[in-house]
């Protein structure tokens, strides 16, 4: 048949229609069809977590989701984390703690870490490391990333108090 499919979905709070080939991953649809290039391609087989997005409240590697599966779903990408020009505390903490060097893994780490803090505002270091095990970083050695997540958690807690 070889017909493209129209997909209706919600990305970062905005309803979006896009046309895709069924074989395109959600990652490809975001980057190539929708020009939302904040989500990065790393390994393209689910190991590195660079392409992490939030799909209906759960983090997934968008390279292992078909674009057509996004029909009727809610997606949050790195582009939806800041509020306008106001960086999310996680983004701020990553900058302040120098939790990145080359930056390819950063969008995935931030989307993944946000999902953790949304549900568990005060996670232990072990819990953070376990939660982020599906995100690989070849620059930082992870310690700075863990410290940034802990700092963001503290900032978010303080803001609530």
């Amino acid at each position, binding site marked *: 048949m070889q017909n493209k499919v129209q997909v209706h979905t919600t990305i970062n709070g905005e309803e979006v229609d896009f046309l895709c080939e069924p074989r395109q991953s959600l990652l490809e649809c975001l980057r190539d069809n929708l020009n939302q290039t904040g989500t990065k391609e790393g390994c393209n087989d*689910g190991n590195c977590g660079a392409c992490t997005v939030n799909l209906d409240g759960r983090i997934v590697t968008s390279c292992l989701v078909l674009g*057509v599966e996004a029909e009727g779903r809610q997606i949050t990408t790195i582009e939806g984390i800041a509020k306008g020009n106001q960086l999310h505390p996680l983004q701020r903490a990553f900058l302040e703690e120098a939790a990145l060097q080359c930056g390819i893994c950063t969008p995935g780490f931030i989307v993944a870490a946000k*999902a953790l803090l949304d549900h568990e505002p005060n996670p232990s270091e072990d819990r953070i490391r376990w939660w982020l*095990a599906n995100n690989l970083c070849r620059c930082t050695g992870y310690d700075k990333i863990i410290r940034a997540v802990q700092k963001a958690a503290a900032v978010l807690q303080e803001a609530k108090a």
Partner: protein
Amino acid sequence: MKWFDYSAPRTLDEALDTYASHPHARLLAGGTDLLVQMRAGRKETDLVIDTKRIPELNELHCNGALTLGAAVPCCRIYEDAAVKSAFPALAAVASIIGGIQIQGRASIGGNLCNAAPSADSIPLLIALGATARIVYKGGERSVPVEDFCTAPGQNILQPGELLVSIQIPKPEPHSGSHYLRFIPRNEMDIAVAGAGVAVTLNGGTITAARIALASVAPTPLFVKAAGDALVGQPATEESVNKAALLAKDAAKPISDMRGTADYRRHLCAVLTRRALRAAIVQAQEA
């Protein structure tokens, strides 16, 4: 990936009709194996049938016994209070397959159908006496999980047959189960070897036991003799050691980049012993 069409049926009947008319279609649940294999060119199809919108494949129901829909993602298993309470070892296994992102998509049904010798969930399913409920147009059949995988990546499903759910019987009182694997890192790795066990006690005596191994044969390996040897025996270290050595003897591992055959045989004894100890403690506390 090569071009394919996509279908997301809303009912089991619709899925079976589509599958019957496209016997070379591939069934998609979480996609964490299928999409990787298709991208690598190891699997091809002109139609992907997404099973995630079929109610029967999304069922997770625990009333002592467990009905586990084939497309239920791992995260739903370890987040379900009833499952965690009745089948803690299953909840634990669901939390060690891949990372959080994978667990949001990957299903135990998919783990079974993918039929990897190293699949973490299958030895435990075998130990728990699970059966696979298979449906096709015009009928259905039920197959013990130990008979489901036939070779690496191969299973007994015929074209047009669909795994709907995994059925786990209600454990007898004073039962315990456990799965242990060896991996060189803490998470996100493939088992060098693994052991899934289930035991039932009556006082200090073992009245039933099942043991199965991962990554030491072309399929997940049910070691009936090792479990049978425990029946009627006291729940002691001596009995546990005996079963562990039988498990080791039954293993038929290969040497590869993850470990040598000798090392894997050694691991079979260690993992079986430790898993049995844990299952016995659980059974004593149950």
